[in-house]
């Protein structure tokens, strides 16, 4: 499912995101790079339906989605600091999206099993987020986001805060999963090495219409 963002504008209090345009072809990973504080997370939230769009349009797979509620957009979000549900086990995190979509119990169980193996979190299934390492928590958040087979995966500086070894290991798992799931992905980062490693399409923040944080 290709993602097309056209002249998207967002106003959030005093902050205003200028007109942004870019396209990510079906099944590819688009990397949006830009300076910190320039509004990349605001853009991500607008794409996911968590912020109101002032103008412009968002199309996913030929369907206009910017007027839909977040749950109807079929997107998976991995926030910068994972934001796991403290009261749920890892197993329940992976089953959360499919349950809401009305999958059968056997389909949910096999999906949980499949993802847990792919993300190397099988032994963590009956644990709660408290006590998980940074890398484990990131992998659980990725699994939760893609479990319901969304049409777009949004990763907002998803691997920030990991030590270099864990970062590389998690990046490897993430690339593998994106490839296997054939999922269109928007990856926001400020690290050039991450961008070149994971990206099929490079979206330059300034070229897409974004502003430097100094210009806000």
């Amino acid at each position, binding site marked *: 499912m290709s993602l097309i963002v056209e002249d998207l504008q967002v106003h959030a209090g005093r902050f205003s995101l200028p007109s942004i345009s870019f396209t990510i072809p079906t099944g590819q990973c688009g990397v949006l790079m830009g300076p910190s504080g320039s509004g990349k997370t605001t853009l991500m939230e607008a794409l996911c339906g968590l912020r109101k769009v002032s103008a412009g349009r968002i199309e996913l797979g030929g369907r206009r989605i910017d007027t839909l509620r*977040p*749950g109807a957009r079929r*997107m998976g979000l991995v*926030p910068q600091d994972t*934001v796991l549900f403290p009261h749920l086990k890892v197993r329940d995190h992976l089953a*959360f*999206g499919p349950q*809401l979509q009305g999958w059968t119990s056997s389909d949910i169980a096999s999906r949980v099993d499949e993802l847990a193996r792919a993300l190397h979190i099988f032994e963590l299934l009956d644990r709660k987020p408290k006590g998980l390492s940074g890398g484990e928590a990131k992998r659980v958040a990725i699994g939760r986001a893609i479990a319901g087979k969304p049409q777009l995966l949004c990763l907002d500086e998803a691997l920030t805060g990991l030590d270099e070894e864990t970062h590389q290991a998690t990046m490897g798992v993430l690339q593998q999963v994106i490839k296997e799931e054939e999922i269109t992905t928007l990856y926001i980062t400020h690290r050039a090495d991450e961008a070149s490693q994971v990206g099929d399409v490079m979206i330059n923040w300034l070229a897409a219409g974004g502003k430097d944080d100094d210009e806000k």
Partner: protein
Amino acid sequence: MKKTAKPESMTKKLGSDLPFFLGFGSVAAIYIGLIAAMVVANVAVVDPESIRAVWQDPNLQASIRLTLLTCSITAILAVLFATPIGYLLSRFRFPGRNLVDTMIDIPIVIPPLVVGLSLLILFNRIDFIPGGAGNSESWISLEKWLHQNGMAVTFSVPAIILAQFAVATAFAVRLTKNTFDQIDPRCEQVGLTLGCNRSAAFWRIALPQAGQGVVAAGVLAWARALGEFGPILVFAGATRGRTEVLATSVFLEINIGNLSGAAAISLLMIGLALLLISFVRFFTRSRSVVL
């Protein structure tokens, strides 16, 4: 350029921590001493004979039963109302939000007697319900309408619950709002992207995390209801064996000059309060929740 202070002079400047601990400790000791002195004073005037007499009094036994019943109903109602109100205030910015927030504080800040008086006037003196065919008046009061339909609130048990509820719910809302404030709203936002609507995000994500806070709000409402006296006296009256709860029992015992009996009932209430506080402490500590 300024000279850097020598380590020895820094140590001298820091001074001792003793005055801090002495000052703060003294303030705490004075207040704790006052509370302890009040309890001891109650114990001092109670004699075993009056405890036995009060305990065997059927009116007091009825008062205890009515207290437990009304406080429990009030606590359940308070949780049912305080949970959605606390969530709305914590999560949403809407027109009139500040007004709602301020109005919640009204039962907390106004004298309890005024709460009772307001309820009494609302139910009995304001005619705002259409009288209907069988009535000579075109508008009748709420109490009159209830009476015509075989119910009564003023000066009966429902009045006790309503008076307790009006005050206790305000305290419960403050606690539930505080609890939801401590829960990261982005958890619900992630839930929304996964397919939750607002209702599912509340039931599946926010409420399970707020469980202990909601229980604590219920216990606080129970405790507030136990201590409520002014609004009950005005709105429900203090009729022996009918609308008598423990707080009114104390008042009635004082009225007949039985100070020792009043103190014995007070000790019973203190015991109940301690039991409740211990329950909350145990419940929240065992789950590492800070409320």
